[in-house]
């Protein structure tokens, strides 16, 4: 790991002043499990780390009128301890449990989960976020793409968004608050992610001099039936092969409105609009759930080795829907 400076501010304002105008100058440092690993592999080499864990207001969970506010530096284990006994927002609770390592939950933070970088093994081996060879040709289509995207992968990006919490948060229509030199902005979690258009762009819409400070889950989320289903090869700490998070507004057994969001299958959390439409107004049962799963794979574009993910999406959506009303 290259040498770097370490800043340890006690306020968000001070933290922002320590950040730079590009990523190589400084990086926000929270749980560190992803950032330090990236730095050890020289995938990123910021000259300065700005620790935000000592900033008190970035910790904890509180209720506001608009909804539940989660400080970005809150460890996942704290979220688990908060949600688990209350059995609230099950889609989020399952996503947290999906980070199955006790150590990882103790270190990893809510904000860090959203802002961790893709696990694409070409990216992690130094071929850039868009995974290209020295001639600029993409490596993923002809390479080992078993873990890559089946949606949003018509170029130039093939990686999948690794966030565990994002699909559930998007399903709840949650927002994030971002502080920067010009003040605070609040955007939907869905808007935090993007498919980079070129090698200059990152997969997050946050700027180098900004800090994700809070996650806001609207109060309306509590009026949903929700669930997450992750298809996992191992119970050991591992990335799900496909995830579906659903949040449903129900009238009896009838779905009034559905949010169906996929994870691990696209460069961003991926809203399955066709599945949402297929559910609206329907009575939710096994048959409806199955056809919603079928609708969810509309437009999938599997690569040479990840066609199985299409099947996983069908199943994940079906099972998440059935879990939500179980």
């Amino acid at each position, binding site marked *: 790991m290259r040498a770097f400076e370490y*800043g340890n*501010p006690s306020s968000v304002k001070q933290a922002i002043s320590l950040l730079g105008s590009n990523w190589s100058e400084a990086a926000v440092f929270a749980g560190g499990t992803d950032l330090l*690993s990236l730095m050890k592999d*020289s*995938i990123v080499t910021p000259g300065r*780390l700005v620790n935000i864990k000592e900033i008190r207001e970035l910790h904890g969970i509180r209720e506001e009128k608009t909804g539940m506010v989660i400080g970005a530096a809150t460890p996942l284990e704290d979220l688990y301890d908060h949600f688990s006994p209350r059995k609230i927002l099950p889609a989020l609770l399952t996503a947290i449990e999906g980070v199955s390592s006790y*150590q990882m939950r103790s270190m990893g933070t809510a904000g860090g989960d959203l802002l961790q970088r893709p696990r694409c093994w070409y990216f992690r081996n130094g*071929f850039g976020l868009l995974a290209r060879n020295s001639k600029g040709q993409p490596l993923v289509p002809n390479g080992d793409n078993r873990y890559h995207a089946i949606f949003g992968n018509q170029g130039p990006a093939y990686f999948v968004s690794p966030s565990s919490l994002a699909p559930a948060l998007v399903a709840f229509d949650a927002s994030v608050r971002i502080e920067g030199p010009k003040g605070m902005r609040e955007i939907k979690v869905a808007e935090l992610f993007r498919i980079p258009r070129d090698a200059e762009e990152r997969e997050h819409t946050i700027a180098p001099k900004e800090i994700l400070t809070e996650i806001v889950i609207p109060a309306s989320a509590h009026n949903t039936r929700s669930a997450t289903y992750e298809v996992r090869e191992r119970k050991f700490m591992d990335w799900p092969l496909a995830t579906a998070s659903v949040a449903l507004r129900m009238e009896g057994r009838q779905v009034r409105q559905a949010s169906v969001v996929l994870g691990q299958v696209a460069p961003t959390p991926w809203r399955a609009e066709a599945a949402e439409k297929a559910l609206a107004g329907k009575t939710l049962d096994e048959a409806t759930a199955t056809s919603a799963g079928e609708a969810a794979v509309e437009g999938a574009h599997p690569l040479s080795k990840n066609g199985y993910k299409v099947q996983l999406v069908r199943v994940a959506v079906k099972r998440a829907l059935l879990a939500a009303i179980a």
Partner: protein
Amino acid sequence: MADRDERDHTTESESAQDGKKRNGKPSKGFSRRQFIKGTGLAVSASVLASEGLLKAAAQEKTPGVSGPGPVPVRLRINGKEHVLRLEPRVTLLDALRNRLDMTGAKKVCDRASCGACTVVIDGRPVYSCTVLAIDAQGRSIGTIEGLAPEDKLHPVSQSFVDNDAQQCGFCTAGFVMAVKAHIDKHPHPTAESVRQSLNGNLCRCGTYVGIREAVLEAATKMSRKGGRV
């Protein structure tokens, strides 16, 4: 929003390759892992950058910022204060092993993937390979060396012995610390909860059968004593 790191690396590697004798053969590509790690062809731009930074830092200090050179780091480990001079980049694991000769925590994956380096900070198990020592200041750090006096064994360690929950033993200290943290937090753990608490630790010899038995036994022993030993 330029991703300078990635762009720099691309440029660097490409120019490196251009400068190479191709011998008429088509370039089939290569791993850039070693290049970007700098363990390869070219002096990485970011090495130079961080060296520039070193010099700059020596000249004018940004307030509230330390490093990149060595700075005093105060660590409270197993109840005892240690003051070291460390660069901010030094991990807690390297500080323990290389500076303090506390070698119970092991370096295996060095990427927060295997659990062999597990120590407990403020009651929580963490991967010390991915904690900066400077960041562990002001916290209570527990390592396996602090579990029991030299001539005694902690009940968790004893259960590992009795149930042959170890073969080569290189992962064992990490498991013991993860179990200890779990039992401390949950004085009446269930078999299921303990098993789940070990999803962040790997063993290559395959000692899981013994570990499961050891943990159940330790939990029973310790819950009789109210969970804390």
